[in-house]
């Protein structure tokens, strides 16, 4: 039996779960996204730094399952270097695909990641006003 059938998640997911990128707080973020709640078991916080309409840095903190952590890690990787407009194009499917897929019952984690990103961008706009 191949080793990979023994994990619920793809290798890519497990890789991001094991070594999540961009974990932690950010000093003076330009935007903060906060989604989820303890009732459903997933909470994500996503911080972005924006320069010249481009996301130059992203960090996250997540309370949640393996998929929640991996999608958080992945979405922060994906946004870095993108313009705000480009970042807004990132869909939950794109995050899931970048991770080599998610089990159906875990797709909501990718939705959460997309929402966290949008929430951070909203916050960035709100702060700029």
């Amino acid at each position: 039996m191949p080793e990979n059938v023994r994990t619920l998640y793809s290798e890519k997911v497990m890789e991001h779960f094991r070594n999540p990128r961009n974990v932690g707080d950010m000093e003076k973020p330009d935007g903060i996204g906060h989604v989820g709640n303890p009732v459903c078991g997933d909470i994500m916080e996503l911080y972005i730094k924006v320069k010249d309409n481009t996301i130059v840095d992203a960090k996250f903190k997540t309370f949640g399952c393996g998929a929640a952590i991996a999608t958080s890690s992945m979405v922060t990787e994906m946004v870095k270097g993108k313009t705000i407009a480009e970042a807004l194009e990132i869909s939950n499917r794109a995050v899931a695909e970048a991770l080599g897929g998610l089990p159906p019952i875990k797709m909501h984690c990718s939705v959460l990641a997309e929402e966290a990103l949008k929430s951070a961008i909203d916050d960035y706009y709100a702060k700029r006003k």
Partner: protein
Amino acid sequence: MKPIYLDYAATTPTHPEVVKAMLPYFTEVFGNPSSIYSYGLEAKEALEQARAKVANLIGARDEEIVFTSGGTEADNSALKGVALANESKGNHIITSSIEHHAVSETCKFLEKRGFQVTYLPVDEYGLVNPEDVKKAITVKTILISIMYGNNEVGTIEPIAEIGQIAKEAKVYFHTDAVQTVGHIPIAVDELGVNLLSMSAHKLYGPKGVGALYVRKGTRLVPFLHGGDQEKKRRATTENVPGIVGFGAAAEMAQREMGQEAQRLTHLRDRLIKGILERIEDVRLNGHPKRRLPNNVNISFNFVEGESILLNLDLEGICVSTGSACTSASLEPSAVLLAMGLSHELAHGSLRMTLGKWTTEEEINQVLEVLPRVIAKLRAMSPLMKK
């Protein structure tokens, strides 16, 4: 390195001796026990010997044991069987809010079919109050079903006290003893139960075999209709190798239970103490004393259970979470919520259940790995800073 298995409450390996006892019944003594030629009668004899061993383990009479396909079928046949057989008497069932799904989902099914179910609350330790049972009984009550040992938090319910109340009220009493049989001594007469569910794969027997103890005189509509097997109480060709395996496991449990329970209680308490000492902001779930010898259930503030589980799996340690991660629903453990835990704490719970092959070294290893894993996850938790 061999993985460290700490999920014996989910299922146990079948003991090699049990497998050995089963083997002849696949290929040699393979006859249908209902047949009257020699092949069949030999199988029948093996069946009855296994029945005696299982009966013996819980202080029952042989003819009070009906074999099933597992704990779930035992629970389903007890609840549905009593409900259907006693409809004319009443339609009220009393149960607790911390039952295994095999009982609680069956109750929900019966509610849809016109039965009324009272789900009794539990205290912070997961204990049902016998007084609550007493108060809940009405003239329409036909069944009380309260589990013996809780599969998530390990709390052992006051079954004998509830049995006394049931007896006085002349109401049938069922207990789901799937987690207790073979682990602590059981005597059905002392418990005062009419029905008791068991499952072989929780005591080193094979999966797919269980039994329902049915006290003589208990009225029950059979769950499986068909042939005359099990004195017409459960149709289907008997799973002879499986039942023989259950018998062998029961015999082994009878022999080793006393010493094993002591050994596990010691390891269990070492693990609990070790975690409480090494990690901050944790909470032991379940009763500190009235607790299955092999159960450790801890909530870790600020982190979610599945992510702990996966990290431990990467380190070769198999545990389980309170919440049903693999199910489509994202609801945290109903048991923990019923005990008053917040959603956050309920999501952050871990169950470690010990067994025959658990060693002191394994416990040490867990105590070394776990703090590291919790620290790593807390470092990425947005709840931590609060």
